């Protein structure tokens, strides 16, 4: 199922995707991506750097965002560009939520640009793991 030009309007919010961060997933990500920084695998190392515990890779949160976009698009090949800024570290047991909204649609090139983000609810407030992200997608 591919997303069509007619399915997309400026301001449309894509379905959010939540994921609970687990040690198993983040360690598996470290192996699969090759980023073996102990900050992302070991609570003691993370604490000695001033964090409350193991920190998920920024790239893990970006991968989750790409996952959210791929599900919405129905075709991962339609994701043409993704740019993000990493803002806040996220920790095991927290729930990260990826989301986005359509900023503009180009009917001639059949492309849309989206503002995208990853948030985490933390002690009554919302923090951004990823802020000011931008995605460009192909539309059928």
């Amino acid at each position: 199922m591919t997303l069509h030009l007619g399915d997309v309007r400026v301001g449309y919010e894509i379905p959010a995707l939540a994921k609970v961060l687990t040690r198993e997933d983040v360690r598996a990500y470290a192996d699969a991506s090759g980023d073996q920084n102990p900050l992302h695998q070991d609570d003691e190392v993370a604490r000695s750097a001033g964090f409350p515990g193991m920190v998920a890779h920024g790239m893990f949160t970006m991968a989750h965002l790409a996952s959210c976009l791929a599900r919405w698009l129905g075709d991962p090949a339609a994701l043409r560009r993704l740019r993000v800024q990493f803002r806040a570290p996220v920790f095991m047991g927290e729930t990260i939520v990826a989301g986005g909204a359509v900023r503009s649609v180009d009917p001639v090139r059949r492309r849309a640009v989206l503002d995208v983000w990853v948030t985490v609810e933390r002690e009554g407030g919302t923090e951004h793991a990823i802020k000011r992200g931008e995605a460009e997608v192909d539309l059928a």
Partner: protein
Amino acid sequence: MRRTGLWYVRGTRMWGDRLGGDAMALNGAMEGKEYPALSFVVDEERVHRFATAVGDDGTFVPPTFVTAPEFAAGLTQVAADAELGLDLARVVHGEQGYDWSRPVRVGETLTVRSTIESIRAKGGMELLTLRTEMRGADDELVVVGRSTLIVRSRA
């Protein structure tokens, strides 16, 4: 509010206190340096592990799987480059971007080449931007990754 947020601030301050000083860590003359190209085989088992870790259903190669070849050709070589003087203990990942020309295919071999695109000073820190090009069998461009690392200044 935000106990963990405070922890982060405290962590940042701790680094600031410890590192102090204004000595710049990176060798700015390395701007433009190109690292040796690396061949990276898109292994099915590794793609599967990646997909499982990030929660994809395994029916496609996750778009950010390209982080694996990018990391192998980029940060791994950059961190080992004595001429550059990058200390990973002081690095935070600031920004990341990918421009895909087409999706990566399981089983294909990518030629991956990283270049130091820029080294800039900003507010007592340095920003190192690494550009990594990944090409397919016929030298066809598959994806370009751009990674900006924030480097805290040396004590």
